């Protein structure tokens, strides 16, 4: 078989197309930039914010897989993030597991809990599922208010009710203790998670999910075990979000319950919608909206309430007009703009007498 045939065969087997090659180049370039140059270019304030933005990109990714790929709306991912933070902090304080192992274990434990949160998906769907997950998130939030987040204390909850002095920090990897170094570390971890999700989407689970989203009876008739695949989606989303939670703990040094209000689950959903739940780029846009926009507002002296207003309006706009979100719409708009400009250019300087 000629080389071209073999390469395209490999590409077909991996489920990659020509546009993916372009995406791949952009991603690799972006990651190299983010790891090598970004931390030194940003001020300390922005280094921290960028780290948190990347972390929330993982949360948005999980939400996107559930909503965009399988059609399961979960408004409880904010609580899963909090759970991930709790488990991560507990492990990092109580054990001396190497950091990567610790966050993976945190992710796995959160995965189990998150799958339980997803169980209602087997019984209800659509609106009711969204409401159930929101309510579960609210309930979990109340429990966390009571238990607090681990701060190196004793007992199962690992919480010391000390009101004076600085609480101990949730540890970071030894090779990435400083903020800029931790940003680099976070980018790598986020990249690994994205690849994990991509492999799922391009593989057997992704096809099964697409079938379930289109029509559950047809998926069943095709032999897809809908129950298993729905739970798998929740498991994947929760694992990724759990890892994000663990990273968030290290990033913020200490975790408090007020960092995870129930309203955040709603805002996460709104920005995920705005960014676009059908593509992985959408998760990146969503994270940017969620973290960077409010931070910009703070720097510019604009009240955070305007961000809330923006997200409300954005959600309304997306739901009414552009259901695929900004990440989907933007390239199309750019392409349209490109064609328009090209058309104008040809009209201004006609080539060889060809009509535009």
């Amino acid at each position, binding site marked *: 078989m000629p080389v071209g045939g073999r390469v395209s065969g490999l590409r077909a087997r991996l489920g990659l197309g020509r546009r993916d090659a372009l995406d791949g180049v952009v991603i690799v370039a972006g990651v190299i930039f983010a790891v090598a140059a970004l931390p030194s270019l940003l001020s300390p304030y922005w280094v921290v914010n960028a780290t948190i933005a990347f972390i929330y990109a993982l949360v948005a990714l999980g939400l996107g897989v559930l909503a965009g790929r399988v059609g399961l709306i979960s408004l409880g991912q904010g609580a899963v993030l909090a759970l991930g933070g709790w488990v991560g902090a507990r492990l990092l304080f109580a054990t001396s597991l190497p950091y990567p192992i610790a966050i993976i274990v945190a992710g796995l434990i959160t995965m189990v809990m998150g799958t339980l949160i997803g169980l209602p998906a087997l019984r209800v769907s*659509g609106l*009711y599922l969204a409401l159930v997950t929101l309510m579960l998130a609210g309930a979990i939030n109340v429990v966390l208010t009571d238990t607090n987040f681990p701060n190196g204390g004793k007992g199962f909850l690992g919480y010391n009710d000390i009101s004076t002095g600085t609480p101990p920090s949730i540890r970071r990897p030894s090779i990435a203790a400083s903020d800029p170094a931790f940003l680099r570390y976070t980018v790598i971890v986020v990249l690994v998670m994205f690849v994990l999700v991509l492999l799922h989407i391009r593989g057997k689970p992704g096809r099964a999910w697409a079938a379930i989203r289109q029509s559950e*009876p047809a998926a069943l008739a095709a032999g897809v075990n809908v129950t298993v695949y729905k739970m798998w989606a929740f498991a994947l989303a929760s694992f990724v979000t759990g890892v994000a939670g663990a990273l968030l703990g290290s990033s913020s040094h200490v975790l408090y319950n007020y960092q995870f209000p129930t*309203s955040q689950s709603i805002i996460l959903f709104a920005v995920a919608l705005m960014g676009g739940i059908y593509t992985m780029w959408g998760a990146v846009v969503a994270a940017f909206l969620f973290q960077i926009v409010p931070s910009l507002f703070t720097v510019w002296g604009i*009240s955070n309430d305007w961000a809330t*207003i923006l997200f*409300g309006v954005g959600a*309304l706009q997306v739901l009414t007009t552009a259901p695929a979100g900004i990440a989907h719409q933007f390239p199309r708009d750019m392409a349209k703009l490109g064609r328009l400009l090209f058309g104008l250019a040809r009209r201004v300087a006609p080539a060889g007498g060809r009509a535009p």
Partner: protein
Amino acid sequence: MPSWSSFQPFIPIGLAAGGAYALSGVGMVVLYRATGVLNLAFGAIGAMGALIAWSMINTWHVPGGVAYVACILFGGVLTLVYGMIFGRVLAARDPLVKAAATLGLALLLLGVMNRLWPAQVTRTLTLPSDNGGFAVGQANVDWTQVIAVGFGIAMTAGTALFLRVTKLGTAMRALADDREITATLGVPVRRVEAAAWFGSGLLAGAAGLLLADLDTLASDALTFLVIFTVSAALIARLRSLVVTFIAAIVIGLVDNLITPINSITNFRDMTPFVLAIVALLFFAGRRQYSFARGGIR
């Protein structure tokens, strides 16, 4: 386990809260049946109306009565405007999208409220009916609580009667049953929907006013009280007004009667969520593959 006398004071509080939830719940159910929209922004709408009333009384020194009417009217008008714009645009989409849109509205209103009425200031709304009341056993009942329950009963019965007896009400029931057929029967669908939006908005405004007095006038808290209303509506399977009322009363009672029980009082905030989860998983209907109209979708 606390004694009966320690529970007593919380009974009228629970009943009154339940009455207010029922008001909002009736509106929510009627609106859902007529338009397919589960309006999760009703809490925010009521909250904003209450805050406007507060400003009218405290900043512009408008007489109380005018302010209260304004609050209720605001609820109706804002809901109607939303319905005429977004309700219409999203009319053909499924209930999830319609409800998600109301979440967007809720976020928007939350932001606006926190801008216009900064949260650092504590505000209270005191209805004149707060003064005066009577005692029943260990419990003190004030007139606002009586109004809340009474209004809840009146609106439930009145709305049920309205739907059954009047032309507009019958049209709403027809709409709830089958929108397309109703339109072909010559019923002015748009006008009937507008009436449903406006009416349910009025009820949300009234509920907001009562809850602002009974509970708190904080935008965040009031907005999220809608969860109680949603629970009651879901227990009624978004169908029966009477069940909505009963469920709302029960929810209000359960939520408040937990307060004196020390072992679980820390988890009192969980009540609305737990009740909603129970409602959703056990009451909200079974899943079915629908095979209507040839084909599977």
